[in-house]
């Protein structure tokens, strides 16, 4: 394959949605302090080591992943917990 003669892009894209969502989610406790008592941090999901659970790999689009992470952070859940809850809503728990 011929090498491109264009210069490599070294500047970060101006519109960085993922960084915006990550930084915004990181800062949520700051906003909460002014409006309501701080939420207690939820313990991290023990799903990976819990009996009855299996670890799987799922492909999620680059566009959807930061939104899912932001939503999980907003709800005080891990990404695992959020996805399991959404999935169980669709297919039922049993």
């Amino acid at each position, binding site marked *: 394959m011929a090498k491109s003669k264009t210069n490599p892009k070294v500047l970060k894209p101006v*519109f*960085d949605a993922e*960084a915006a969502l990550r*930084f*915004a989610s*990181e*800062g949520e406790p700051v906003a909460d302090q*002014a409006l309501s008592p701080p939420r207690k941090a939820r313990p991290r999901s023990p799903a990976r080591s819990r009996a009855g659970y299996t670890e799987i790999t799922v492909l999620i689009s680059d566009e959807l992943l930061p939104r899912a992470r932001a939503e999980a952070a*907003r709800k005080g859940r891990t990404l695992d917990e959020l996805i399991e809850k959404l999935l169980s809503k669709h297919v039922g728990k049993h």
Partner: protein
Amino acid sequence: MADIIGVIQVKGGVGRSTIATNLAAILSAAGPTTLIDCDLPQGTSASWFATRDSAASGRDLDLVLARDHVELVEKAGELNGSRRYIIIDAPPRIAAITRATIILSRLSLIPLGASAAEIWSTSDLLRTLDDARRYKPDVDARIVWNRFRAHTREARELSEAVRRELSLRELDARLGFRVAYSEALARGLSVTEWPDDTAREEMTALADEVVEILGGKS
């Protein structure tokens, strides 16, 4: 790709919506512009636009509401390819939506009056701007002096103290203490559409400086 300009400040009543609405009106003459109002339910920018819609229809300007940071990022992303400018009127607190605004914006404007209360609020915002630079090293946030009474010693001393103690750049353009800004806002107009030559010159100078800064980044 749109030039995104955020208007941020922790304290309310400092002129965020005045600056956001005027910039939106002026910059829309150069291309399609969207004003995003994130300060809900107050919605000053939205009220201004609703008033303007009937008074100045046909202009290349529209309004979008964003209730949280996820909605803001989604809507800005959708508009990014089709708009020349996006102006974000952020809420008066360091909320997730304000943090998202800082990251999305090529230039963040921080309205500031020469009063101790407003300057103290800005000190809090400085920490958030420093944090934001971990995600976006070229965060550019600049003070816009508003309701500035250049002839008073208090204003001169406070502005000198800010320059000395806060590590923030400031725009050369300053907005004075003028009733024209609230008069124009109440009618859905910019001050460039209102019969006050001094206010018009101040706001035009502000918009020109913003365009010059953004042009220098391209």
